[in-house]
């Protein structure tokens, strides 16, 4: 049986004139020092991540996995959202996918060879790359 903790009453937290809470991982007024979210390094920017030959990408833990894939021209790539939050697949130069709820998938067929970058438009720090090679 799960024991419900005693309610502390309606006043869970009162923040007024003072009441500074220590923030784990938070610098004091660190906006200036904090890296801009859209410039945060992602797997796609890491030279070390070699392209994986696959047509399946999982969306898990707010990341595209694998982040860099390689497919042949004409291949259909499937993204499957395994997170509890919704995500999208926004490929540069193509319409953004519908938002994918948990368990939903999106398929996009790549024609022209080239390197296509994409991101989740809800969480733009999530980035990936599809390298399309000629058949």
């Amino acid at each position, binding site marked *: 049986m799960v024991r419900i903790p005693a309610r502390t009453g*309606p006043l869970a937290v009162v923040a007024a004139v003072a009441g500074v809470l220590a923030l784990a*991982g938070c610098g004091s007024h660190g906006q200036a020092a904090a890296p801009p*979210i859209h410039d945060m390094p992602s797997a796609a920017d890491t030279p070390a991540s070699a392209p994986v030959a696959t047509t399946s990408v999982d969306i898990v833990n707010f990341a595209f996995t694998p982040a860099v894939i390689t497919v042949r021209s004409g291949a259909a790539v499937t993204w499957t959202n395994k997170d509890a939050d919704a995500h999208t697949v926004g490929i540069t130069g193509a319409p953004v996918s519908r938002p994918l709820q948990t368990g939903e998938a999106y398929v996009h067929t790549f024609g022209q060879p080239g390197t296509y970058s994409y991101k989740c438009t809800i969480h733009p720090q999530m980035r990936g790359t599809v390298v399309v090679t000629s058949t």
Partner: protein
Amino acid sequence: MTEIDRRGFLKCMAWAGTGVAWTVAGGLLSGCELGGTSKPAAAKTRDLYFVQISDSHIGFKGPANQDVTGTFSGAIDQINALPSRPGFVMHTGDLTHTSTAAEFDTVKQMMSTIKAGGTFQVPGEHDAVTGDDQAYLGIFGKNATGSGYYSFDMAGVHFLALVNSVATQGMGHLGQAQLDWIRKDLSGLSSDTPIVVFAHVPLFAMYPAWGWSTDDAMQALAMMKRFAAVTCLNGHVHQVMSKVEGNVTFHTARATGFPQPKPGEAPNPGPLTVPSNLLHQAIGIAEARFSARTGHVAVIDDTLP
């Protein structure tokens, strides 16, 4: 003579003979000239009571909350049952989960049942999931500028409703156009005007690795340095967090939809599933009281009944 006038007068009297006396009111040191009229620092303000709700995520389906419409409705019932009617209710974004017309329509209809002096909202990233904010702006952006920002005054307090999460301008980003607008918006205000800033994403660096910060917030806050008291009320993080920095108090509110993990305590910032009988203790509303006497906003976070 009002309470503040009388108190200010007495303080000045106590310093009679020194030329100028200083009194702290509204967090601002203000001189009161001897022989002149003692003025309260936060002139023309009156007490104001308002409520913040956030992150209803209408359209979300998952184990973290199987009925976000039900809990949003519960939050509205909670507001409508408050002993005094709020001056207004502000929804600080992520009204919907996937920005569909049906989700926006549900939110609009539900918010119209709130008993308050008015309702306001700012968008979150879930209100423009494909980067297109036209659906949101079509319904909620009628009196807004640019991507949906605006300001209003109530009880002598100046409120800014900012947009820092729509992908068209960058996540956790205000952008130059909005910063220019803020500068213009604040330019005519006297420095004793209390300022309250609403925005979806926290305006302090709560946890940048999860996108819980606004990269150009410092530029906006720099424009507010001259004001006695600035209160930033945010959503996005689905949990209560407070921080005081100089003249600025930051506060984040619980969601009405579902909780999220504490910074760094999970592999990702997504929905946190708690035992269903504990869900109501992890979501809720925030009551806010502006006191004309102190010039400050006090926030009381209530969980759902």
